[in-house]
């Protein structure tokens, strides 16, 4: 009969620590999985009032209401797949929380809309850097048929060197121009007109934030 002799340095204390650490690690991993899962949900994201504006436009798009019943949540698009990257994205995402708590009053619809373009540009960059990875969780290029007759052919023949986000932006949230054609004055004027504000109010609001 073979007797397993534990090395000398495995004392009772070490054994206890290993078992406790192992269990703790497993529990932590479960916690992370659940944490990332919960923090990717629409319910979590919209606990901040500022996010309900993004939610409004999202709810009117096929990504919320698709005929097939598939619904993409906030995290499905905006949080990477896999526990490591998901956790990383959430860690980086805490800057949004910090800005929500200490930055401009994003809960105010005017302030929110004034800052929307920067948020959109950042989100587009995020998608581009990841080669639109989160789009591809659901969409498979080879399988895209589309409704119009030639959508499939376009996706087979015209997509080389392109990532989903290169063509498909302004899909879910409010329309924001591309960064290279964005005009701050025009955007401000639009916000002022929409909320019935005096011309110049938007610029004042923005400059008061930086002081």
């Amino acid at each position, binding site marked *: 009969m073979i007797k397993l002799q534990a090395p000398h340095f495995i004392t009772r204390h070490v054994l206890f620590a290993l078992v406790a650490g192992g269990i703790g690690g497993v529990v932590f991993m479960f916690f992370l999985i659940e944490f990332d899962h919960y923090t990717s949900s629409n319910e979590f994201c919209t606990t901040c009032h500022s996010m309900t504006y993004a939610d409004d436009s999202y709810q009117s798009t096929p990504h919320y209401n698709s005929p097939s019943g598939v619904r993409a949540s906030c995290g499905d698009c905006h949080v990477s797949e896999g526990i490591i990257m998901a956790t990383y994205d959430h860690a980086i995402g805490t800057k949004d929380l910090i800005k929500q708590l200490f930055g401009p009053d994003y809960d105010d619809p005017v302030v929110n809309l004034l800052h929307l373009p920067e948020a959109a540009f950042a989100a587009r960059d995020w998608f581009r850097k990841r080669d639109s990875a989160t789009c591809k969780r659901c969409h498979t290029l080879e399988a895209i048929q589309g409704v119009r007759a030639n959508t499939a052919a376009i996706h087979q023949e015209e997509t080389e060197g392109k990532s989903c986000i*290169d063509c498909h932006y302004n899909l879910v949230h409010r329309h924001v121009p591309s960064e290279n054609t964005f005009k701050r004055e025009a955007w401000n004027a639009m916000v002022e007109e929409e909320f019935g504000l005096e011309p110049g109010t938007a610029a004042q609001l923005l400059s008061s934030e930086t002081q």
Partner: protein
Amino acid sequence: MMWSFSFPRSLPLIFWGFCMLFVASATQAAKVELSSEHWGNPAGERCVSCHEKSSAGLTRQWHESAHREAGVNCLDCHQAEAADADAMEHEGEIIATIVSPKDCGRCHTKEYEEQAGSVHAEAYAKIKTRIPALAHQLTGGAMQAAGCDQCHGSEVKVLGDGTLDPATWPNSGIGRVNPDGSKGSCSSCHGRHAFSKAQAREPSACVRCHSGPDSPDKEVFEASKHGMLYAAQRDQMNLDGETWIAGKDYTAAPTCTTCHMGAAGKIPATHDVGLRNAWNLNQPVSHKQYLILFEDGSKLEQSDAEAPPRRGSELVKPDGSTGKVRAVIAPDRRRGVMSLVCLECHGKTFTESFMTQFDNVVELYNSKFGEPAEAIMAALYERGLLTPLPFDEPLEFTYWELWHDEGARARHGASMMSANHAWWEGMYLVGRNFYSRFLPQARAAAGEQAAEIIDPVLASTGQHEWLGEPQQANPILGWMPPPAPAAPPVEPAEVPAAALQLVPAAVAVVSEPAAADTTSVPNAASDASTAVASDTNLAQDKPQSGSAAADENQEAAQ
């Protein structure tokens, strides 16, 4: 012009014809002068393979176009600068949806400069202040995009998010105010993306706007001899011709383009569509008009009721800015150019006499209806008998239609030889409107001041006296006063009742229409005059004077 008084009428025409000779040779065929190295952007070639799939129709049109043949691709027209108000990113390129006349003018410089400042390019600017009354107050804002702006063009608004405001776009109205500030829309007449010469030479290129009750030019043309010949001989029109000079490349018939824009004989083509128009036919009162050309290339129409500006003088333009006058084209000269087109197919006397017939109609409209109606309306507004608010009183609709609808139809009908539009759809309705609606409504609005406001205006024209003769013979409506009774005269007590007299009167219409001695016909004639007068209240000094006159009549007869 002095010429007209001291020389035969045709001399100015010939003179300006010679002037045109010199201009013509240089500008006859508006070939693009830009070197071809300025187009054919390689990046633009990449648009095609995707758009063949995503928008096959427009890509096919482009494939079959002269643009494609010359190597002009999508980006050559649609490329934009990032700073442009309507610039957007599309597949890695900065483009704009709207291709403005300024964009087209990068190659088609001559056409761009000609259309700038024309009545076409200014079509929206001209009516901008009138739009609210009809489109917003009378109906609703939705009608501006669906109605007015479809022809006149919209003031395209780029929203803060870079998209084009759906209240103002899509739009290809000819006076569109574009995001780049230029006015007009080439695709109003030149259907994109084929831009076919033949299509733009067809009368149908103009029909989208020049049809309907207020400018029935399509209907006028079709009902004219010109339209008749065009329909019958369309296959001889050489519509695809490389050049399209009336009298040379085709002689079968003229289209809208032929007379208003086209090259004819030695006359060069022009994209200033109003250049050859001596009159303005779409105003309450028509005026012959000077075309003032400014140093900066802009233009201004000015009524010949005012003295023309001197060359080199400063003048305030409609947009408030001042410009230096480069040249003034007199109405006679404009008429002269138009007449030279006619001369490709017609004789000089024929042409001049036709123009006289046309001018006579416009002058008749002006003096008999347009000017009196305008004066009466002005007096009613001045005295507060009408509110300044437009279209809150029935009279305002009546006046509007008098000049804007039937008045315009009459003048357009006469200008392009549709008898039906000149008369039944035009001047007949002007007359009916004027006598049976406009004057009664104006008298009602004027109330006690009617005699003071309206009657002098009518009297001053010298053309409404016929109303003062209510007992004129009436063969057209089938009633004639009975003939004078045969001698010997009967005693008054034995005059038969009016009802009995009607029967012989009806017979008299057939047998003896000219024998209308109304003073001896007591009751029937006075009844008739009362009826006419009380129905329309037209010819009398006082509202009651109609029946008063009839009473006098009756007394005199008895």
